[in-house]
């Protein structure tokens, strides 16, 4: 909310010419979310300090349409740090308040535009995602030296730890236009939270304001990604324009996935292929992917003519919508459309719709349920749905020690409720097999380490029960 710019350039008053704001006045600028004020706390022969102070209307912020996307009714929006920190609102204010300077013009003293001056900038409160390391990564390549002070969440409760807010002081010698363009882009990049804009023209703004320095900035991928608020398609487009043939689409930041860094993609594909192979080998004609997520396995299954009926089920409606898009279900030829169906369902409720399939797959699903709720899952799958074959994969907890990023006892994903060792998984699987009259085999997925095994473990169950009158046995010559 408060940006203070001090220059010791001589004569100090030059700054006010450059900024095109009279030092003895209080300037008010209207913003779509409130006002900004410009005033000068100090104008002396050797020093000039100018402040840009935002007065954001907290009520208007929430009521305004076209605000942050997502759940319009989340309480957090009403108790919001936006009025008090430097964020994309600050960028919007900079552009509006100092437009002439940003555009490299100065009516009265045009020669000043290209003069590099010593600047000291202070931002009273800036949220920084990634902390000091990110600040360094962003500002040091541009020649800044910094001082920073991090603030606790609440000094009355030291156990709550440090907040993400810093008071940041930056020093550098550069033109005012350079300074403002850096701040314009990097303030929201530090924040990496809600941006009250995102659209096609943002790319233009980014490219325009960063034209002289962004292409050579070592953190350009991070800057682009965050500035465009993780809109990967927009980000990729911008990177393409920026870097032409140097593009790398996978330079994303890690999300909530804790591990499996560069191996991630490869292992994930491997796992799905292993499951597909099991289903093919099982001679299944009708398959149901329980917990199909965004439909990656379904895509593999669709490619196999063997499967006549493919059903994807997930508890998350949002996932199913993504799956529908990814599989382009609406655009498939009719014959293909009739092979596949998506539906919302849960593995803790029995469901007549999943009964009678040749095979079911549960790929990285069970670990997302509380262990106590597995009692329901096993009945839903093995007592009621009763597929002939069931393929289940889950992380092998023993392998976790090979991940540097994971601390002992930490799990691979924030939503994992448990991760089992091979012995634990097999103990569970053996009991299931015994109780529901299935045979079971365990297989590693991925390269097997002599000591800790493979990254993923897989169990393949096959029923021992012959159910007369069910056509699946006719189709399943075993």
């Amino acid at each position, binding site marked *: 909310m408060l940006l203070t710019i001090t220059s010791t350039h001589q004569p100090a008053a030059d700054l006010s010419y450059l900024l095109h704001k009279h030092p003895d006045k209080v300037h008010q600028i209207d913003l779509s979310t409130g006002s900004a004020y410009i005033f000068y*706390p100090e104008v002396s022969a050797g020093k000039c300090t100018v402040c840009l*102070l935002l007065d954001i209307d907290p009520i208007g912020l929430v009521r305004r349409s076209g605000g942050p996307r997502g759940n319009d*009714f989340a*309480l957090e929006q009403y*108790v919001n740090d936006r009025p008090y920190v430097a964020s994309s609102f600050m960028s919007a204010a900079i552009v509006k308040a100092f437009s002439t300077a940003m555009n490299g013009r100065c009516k009265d003293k045009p020669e000043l535009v290209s003069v590099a001056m010593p600047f000291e900038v202070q931002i009273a409160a800036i949220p920084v995602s990634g902390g000091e390391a990110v600040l360094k990564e962003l500002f040091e390549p541009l020649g800044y030296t910094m001082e920073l002070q991090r603030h606790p969440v609440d000094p009355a409760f030291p156990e709550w730890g440090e907040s993400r*807010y810093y008071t940041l002081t930056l020093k550098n010698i550069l033109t005012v236009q350079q300074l403002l363009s850096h701040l314009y882009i990097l303030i929201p990049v530090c924040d990496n939270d809600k941006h009250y804009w995102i659209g096609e023209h943002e790319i233009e703004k980014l490219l325009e304001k960063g034209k002289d320095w962004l292409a050579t900035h070592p953190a350009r991928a991070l800057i682009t990604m965050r500035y465009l608020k993780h809109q990967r398609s927009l980000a990729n487009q911008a990177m393409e324009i920026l870097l032409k043939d140097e593009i790398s689409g996978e330079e994303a930041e890690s999300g909530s996935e804790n591990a499996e860094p560069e191996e991630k993609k490869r292992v994930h594909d491997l796992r799905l292929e292993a499951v597909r192979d099991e289903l093919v080998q099982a001679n299944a004609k009708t398959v149901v992917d329980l917990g199909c997520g965004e439909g990656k396995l379904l895509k593999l299954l669709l490619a196999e003519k063997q499967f006549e009926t493919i059903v994807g089920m997930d508890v998350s409606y949002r996932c199913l919508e993504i799956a529908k898009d990814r599989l382009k279900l609406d655009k498939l030829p009719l014959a293909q459309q009739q092979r596949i169906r998506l539906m919302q369902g849960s593995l803790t409720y029995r469901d007549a719709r999943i009964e009678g399939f040749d095979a079911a797959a549960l790929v990285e699903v069970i670990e997302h349920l509380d262990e106590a709720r597995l009692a329901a899952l096993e009945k839903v799958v093995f007592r009621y749905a009763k597929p002939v074959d069931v393929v289940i994969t889950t992380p092998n907890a023993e392998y976790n020690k090979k991940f540097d990023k994971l601390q002992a006892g930490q799990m691979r994903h924030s939503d994992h409720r448990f991760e089992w060792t091979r012995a634990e998984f097999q103990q569970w699987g053996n009991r299931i097999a015994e109780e529901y009259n299935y045979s079971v085999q365990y297989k590693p997925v991925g390269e097997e380490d002599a000591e800790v095994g493979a990254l993923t473990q897989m169990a393949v169950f096959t029923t021992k029960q012959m159910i*007369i009158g069910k056509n699946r046995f006719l189709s399943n010559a075993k």
Partner: protein
Amino acid sequence: MPNRNIHIPELSLVVLIGASSSGKSTFARKFFKPTEIVSSDHCRALVSDDENSLEASTDAFDLARFITAKRLKAGLLTVIDATNVQEGARKDWVRLAREYHVLPVAIVINMPEKLCSERNKTRPDRDLGGHVIPQQISQLKRSLRHLKLEGFRHIIEFRTPEEVDALEAIIRDPLYNNKKHEKGPLDIIGDVHGCYDELVALVKELGYENKDGLYQHPAGRKLVFVGDLVDRGPNTPGVLRLVMNQVHAGLAYCVPGNHDAKLLKWMNGKEVTIAHGLQESIDQLQQETPAFREEVKKFIDGLVSHYVFDDGKLVVAHAGLREEMHGRGSGAVREFCMYGETTGEIDEYGLPVRYNWAAEYKGKAMVVYGHTPVPEPQWLNRTIDIDTGCVFGGKLTALRYPEKELVSVPAAREYRVSKRPLHLNANAPLTLQQQHDDVLDLADVTGKHIVETAYGNKITIREENAIAALEVMSRFAINPKWMIYLPPTMSPSETSKLDGYLEYPTEAFEYYKTVGVEKVICEEKHMGSRVVVIVGRDEKAILQTFGIEKEGIGVVYTRTGRNYFNDKKTEQDFLLLVNNALERSGFYDRFQTSWVCLDAELMPWSAKAQSLLESQYGSVGAAATQGLSGAVEALQQAAVRNEAVLPLLEKYKLKKEQTNQFIHAYRRYCWPVHKLTDYKLAPFHILATEGKSWVDQSHEWHMENIQQLCEADPAVLMATPFRTVDLSDEASIQEATDWWLFLTAKGGEGMVVKPFHYIHTHKKGLVQPAIKIRGQEYLRIIYGPEYTTPENLNRLKSRALGAKRSLALREFALGVEALERFTRKEPLRRVHECVFGVLALESEPVDPRL
């Protein structure tokens, strides 16, 4: 003399048979409601815009069949108005009637050809060609004698227009199984199998007295026998004599069992395998007179497959009955009633494995049956098997209706050894219902749903909300067997008209006055987390009541059905403290229960909302403190050289002060938790104990009983201060208002105003069960630090409560319904649909600040 009246069964599929222009449609219109008639002409018109289009016949038939099927499924008499002169056409209707277990009735309008042809000529729109009518009539005449063979149970023929004209009414006879007017009370007795002595003992035990050879009950109760009176036991004739006498005297009802039917077959000279105790019956009946044997034959032959009693609330059938067969009549129904269904498999004792129809039963009627001996009768989805294997040395059992009490007498001895040991699963830890409830069925919760509640009428759960609830329930919620209640959302009072206040007590009192509440209770509102606490005396109590094993002596869960505590051990240790307090205060004995479900607030707020506090409230405080300190400092500096910034300085000083107040407001609800006694539990409703939900008591009763409990462990349990307010007394209102001002001046959250009685209704139905009035400072946490600035407050004052209030009522009705269903020991799916509904409604978009 032609008939003036004809009789047909009240639930039948009436197939009119007659040539074109024979007068079928006129006949149908005269004797049936327009909605009862499915006309082929009309269906033809619907699918082709031309009721004479022959090309449309196939589609028209499909449509007629579809409509008819829907009507029969709903149990509605239906008339097929089509020529139906060919057997092929009729066959489909008979098949459909059987599919829905209704009786097919043929009404033949067999008019002279001349009459039809003449009538046809007057219809210019229909040119049939000269050969059609004669051909139809000849087909009709050929059909006549086959109708019975085709499956028509009633055949009525009209040969002349005079006969048709003479008919005044078609009388609809109730089905024999329809005893809906019989409301009891009844005593339903399980399979007797010739155990005469035990039968007499049981009947006496039930309070019947033998007067003039008939057993009569002083309260006018009647006996109902589920069949299998005969075979295996020592005195089949004695049993038959008793039952026949009672039935003939109108003092009992009896449905046939498979043994009874087989005995009849044998008596009728049919070839039957003599096994399963038939020999005993044969031998014993040999000792009786031929007249008695004739009487037995007539009696068994006249037995009706099943009975529907008491407005459809009770169904009695020997082997039970699926819902879609209740009150229906068909061979399949009779078959099911006597033999049930088997899976086709044979168990290890060589007996057919019975298909468990009761596990899938979702009907509203109670179904009482026998047929399969069980060690103890157990309820499953409102059905109960009361065959306790008397003849196998078990006992003879009766179910009292409507009391649902079981009365039994032990067998004098084991007359016959059962192939399948009677006490096979006698010691299973879970009841049949609890085992069945281990897994809920998705079909009971997904899609658009309507839940009938006692206080809120029918509540609709929309599909999109069910979708959201399913995800939350599946991914985060605790074992659904715990979830017997979810608390409703609570509306704030109407917005205050006073300056500086968003909420103030006046509006809440006014609201209750306008809906006819005379007395309200004001309870201090605690700021923590809303929790539902279930505690049992021990794990055994939990197992018995909830059917939950190895999950401890209880649970603490949040308003979205999640575990409050992240680790089981802390939860159980905490519950142990509550349990001790319950024991010490004598609660369990006083309430004659071994468990309790409490509605409560668990503090501190920071214990559960830690991440919210750190990421949201604490962070905003930190950001605002830094940002505003910097601003005030810069403005002060600027003010030295430029007075123009002074107004701005004042503004930012105020913001800074508001930030301090905001931080102060949330800090009040935060304290570190190092040990169990750092938690404070403030219960405010005793929701349920064994067999009882306490929503019929006043809030004063709840507060007082809770106070008594809290005294047993003040270190953890916190009694809630409250005031009872007489709304006709201004002084009383003023006193409560002052109390609110006092509480909130200290920074308290405020208070909750509730009608004196837990449930209060007025002419428009339920009134708000509670209204919160939150304090000025507390509201900073909700509306942000700067909400009190007049320009902000004035804008915030325009807020709409309608959606929130409607939601609160619906959720309240569902929550109470869940509790009552649970305490009535209804199947879990019936409880779950209510709590699922609450969760689903919570996903409706409502301003979260309310």
